[in-house]
C-alpha cells in the first residue's frame, strides 16, 4: 500500500467504499475568504447555486411566461439583473439568462428551472463553473475602474454587464452603485480573479 493511498480515508456506504470528501470553496479553503482594505470588503461567496437558461428557437413567448412565473417577475431585460429572493437572474445574452439561488435550499437549481421551463429552453447546471466575490463599501467605484472597462459609476442598482477582468470573462452585477457589486468569474481561475480584485483594492484605496 503506497503512502498516498493510506492518507485517503474511506467510508462504507452499502456495498461500496466512498472517499470522505470535504467541500471546499472556490479558493480551496474550508471557509469563504474575506479581505478588507480601507473600508472595502471583498467576500468570497460560496453558497450560490447557478443555472443557465437558453431559450429554444420558436419558444421565446412560452419560455418568457414560464420564467416569469418561476421568478415572480419579468425576466431581466438587456443589461439588467433581477435582484430578488429566492431566485435572482442576470441577462447574459439574447434569450439567455443566468438564474441564481442559495445552494443550501436550492442545490438542485438546474432541475427546478428545467421543470419550470420544460422543452421551451435548454438549462445547464452552472454552480461549479463560477466563483463569486462581493465587493462592499465606499470606494468600490475606484476599484471597479481599475479592474474593468465597464462604466461602473454610471451603473444603477440592477444593472449587469459581462466584461473582462484580468483577461477573464466576468459578470459584474451592480447591487448599489455606492456600496455593493457582485463579480462572477470562471471558477478555475478563482485565485487569479481574487488576486486581481485585492490588488486593485490596494491600488485604488
Amino acid at each position, binding site marked *: 500500500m503506497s503512502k498516498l493511498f493510506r492518507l485517503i480515508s474511506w467510508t462504507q456506504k452499502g456495498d461500496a467504499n466512498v472517499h470522505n470528501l470535504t467541500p471546499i470553496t472556490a479558493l480551496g479553503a474550508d471557509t469563504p475568504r474575506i479581505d478588507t482594505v480601507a473600508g472595502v470588503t471583498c467576500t468570497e461567496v460560496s453558497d450560490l447555486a447557478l443555472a443557465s437558461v437558453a431559450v429554444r428557437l420558436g419558444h421565446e413567448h412560452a419560455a418568457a411566461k414560464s420564467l416569469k412565473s418561476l421568478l415572480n417577475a419579468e425576466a431581466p431585460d*438587456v*443589461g439588467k439583473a433581477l435582484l430578488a429572493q429566492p431566485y435572482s437572474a442576470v441577462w*447574459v*445574452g*439574447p434569450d439567455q439568462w443566468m438564474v441564481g439561488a442559495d445552494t443550501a435550499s436550492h442545490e438542485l437549481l438546474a432541475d427546478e428551472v428545467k421543470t419550470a421551463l420544460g422543452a421551451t429552453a435548454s438549462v445547464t447546471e452552472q454552480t461549479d463553473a463560477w466563483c463569486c466575490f462581493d465587493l462592499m463599501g465606499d470606494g468600490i467605484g475606484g476599484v471597479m475602474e481599475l479592474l474593468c*472597462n465597464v462604466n461602473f459609476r454610471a451603473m444603477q442598482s440592477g444593472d449587469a*454587464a*459581462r*466584461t*473582462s477582468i484580468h483577461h477573464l*470573462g466576468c459578470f459584474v452585477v451592480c447591487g448599489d452603485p455606492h456600496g455593493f457589486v457582485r463579480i462572477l468569474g470562471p471558477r478555475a481561475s478563482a485565485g487569479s480573479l481574487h488576486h486581481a480584485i485585492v490588488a486593485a483594492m490596494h491600488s485604488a484605496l
Partner: protein
Amino acid sequence: MIINHPLLGPRDSAEFVYLGDASLMERPDPETASAEDWHAYAYLRDNPAGPHRELWWHEGGDRSWLVVTRNTVTHEITKVEMARDVARKLGSKA
C-alpha cells in the same frame, strides 16, 4: 475602434473577436452544392478596399455574433446587425 452593439451600445473592439467575411453565413446547400461551390465558399474572398461585411463575436460581452459593415480603408463602421437576425432573414428567403 468602437463597435456600436445593437443591444449593448458602444463597446471597445478589444472585447470582440474577428472571424472574417460575412459570406461565411451563406453556406452552400449540402444536398445540391457542387465541388466548385464548396471551393468558392471555403477559399474565395473578395478582399475589397472599401465597405466590407464581416463577422465579429462579442467574446468579452454577451457572446453575440454581429455582422459589421466596416470600411477596410478608413475603419469607419456604417452598420452593425445581430448576426442571428441576418441569418433568420436569409433562412426565411430560402
